[in-house]
């Protein structure tokens, strides 16, 4: 199989917008919808991009009963009340260099939305550039959104990850910090420890998500990203599965590999370490 190289510029432009572009297109609410999705779900209310709606990852982008992504029906409702149609261009942005914006991007692709983009640099860059913020929550006429059935080729479940680890049929990328990867800590400093054991899935390569970002929160160039991942042996020749702790940081890496580097077969394992690290008798590697 030929090595997959970085995505052509047209692909990158199709999934990323600059803050300049965003500022110039804020008023175009008929075909574009800006959506803020933050780790800190209160950040939106402090001030957000004008005309942006806010989605909460922990209530609106997941199943609140069982552990799962948002259901098709619930997503359709969310998009409909946000005034989003199947033809709308959705521009996502958020804090932490677009962690949960990428999580939303991944879910929108799982449900087949055509035109989704990330605002490069996210909330951090918008604020650092001193651009306008508002506390006014916009309202839009309700739309009718019809989602596709979930595209499971974008999502890895436990059995596939087990197979990937034991048979080396797929490459596993652990995007957590090196201290989480080695098991020195169970969760990012300051966040709840939600697993029983530390370490990583045997065979995984550790490429922390943040290495894909510049200091200002934007994504690194295709050349830099290619060097980063191919340098660690993640070339796209084999299918790739990215994971982290709960699946949001790995959404970020999934986005990079699939859309900025153009790897064809990339999945996000949203069960991630909070699933694997709690399994009885699961193999764990601690290098």
């Amino acid at each position, binding site marked *: 199989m030929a090595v997959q190289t970085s995505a052509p510029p047209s692909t990158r432009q199709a999934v990323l917008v600059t803050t300049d572009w965003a500022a110039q297109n804020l008023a175009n609410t008929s075909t574009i919808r800006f959506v803020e999705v933050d*780790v800190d779900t209160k950040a939106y209310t402090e001030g957000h991009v004008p005309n942006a709606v806010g989605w909460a990852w922990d209530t609106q982008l997941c199943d609140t009963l069982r552990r799962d992504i948002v259901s098709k029906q619930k997503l359709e409702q969310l998009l409909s009340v946000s005034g989003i149609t199947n033809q709308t261009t959705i521009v996502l942005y958020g804090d932490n260099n677009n962690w949960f914006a990428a999580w939303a991007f991944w879910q929108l692709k799982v449900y087949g939305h055509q035109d989704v983009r990330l605002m490069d640099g996210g909330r951090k860059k918008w604020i650092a550039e001193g651009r306008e913020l508002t506390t006014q929550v916009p309202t839009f006429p309700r739309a009718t959104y019809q989602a596709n059935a979930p595209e499971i080729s974008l999502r890895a479940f436990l059995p596939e990850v087990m197979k990937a680890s034991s048979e080396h049929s797929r490459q596993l990328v652990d995007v957590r*910090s090196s201290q989480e990867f080695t098991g020195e800590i169970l969760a990012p400093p300051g966040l709840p420890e939600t697993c029983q054991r530390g370490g990583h899935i045997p065979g995984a390569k550790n490429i*922390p998500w943040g290495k894909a970002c510049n200091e200002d929160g934007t994504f690194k160039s295709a050349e830099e990203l290619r060097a980063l991942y191919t340098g660690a042996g993640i070339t796209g020749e084999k299918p790739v599965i990215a994971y982290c702790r709960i699946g949001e940081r790995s959404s970020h890496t999934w986005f990079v590999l699939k859309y900025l580097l153009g790897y064809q077969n990339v999945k996000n394992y949203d069960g991630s370490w909070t699933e694997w690290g709690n399994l009885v*008798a699961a193999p764990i590697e601690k290098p």
Partner: protein
Amino acid sequence: MPKPEEYSETHTTLAGWPITITTYRLDTIYYTTIDNTDPGAWVVKAQGATKAESESKATAQAQALLEKIKKNPPPTGCTSVPGF
């Protein structure tokens, strides 16, 4: 519409952990967020009438939180279970 001003990022260490203190002013309020740098998740946030007040509040909260973090012993090797 207000614009954020006086944006600043300070990289430092607190309770042995690298952190980033980010502050900006919106109208008359200073907003501070402290994240844990690696991996970059926010740890605490605070507000104040001055930058010093906002950052002081956030730092005190972060200190209390970060001091509680347990570090596990250094890794000793693979603990795979055959036949899984």
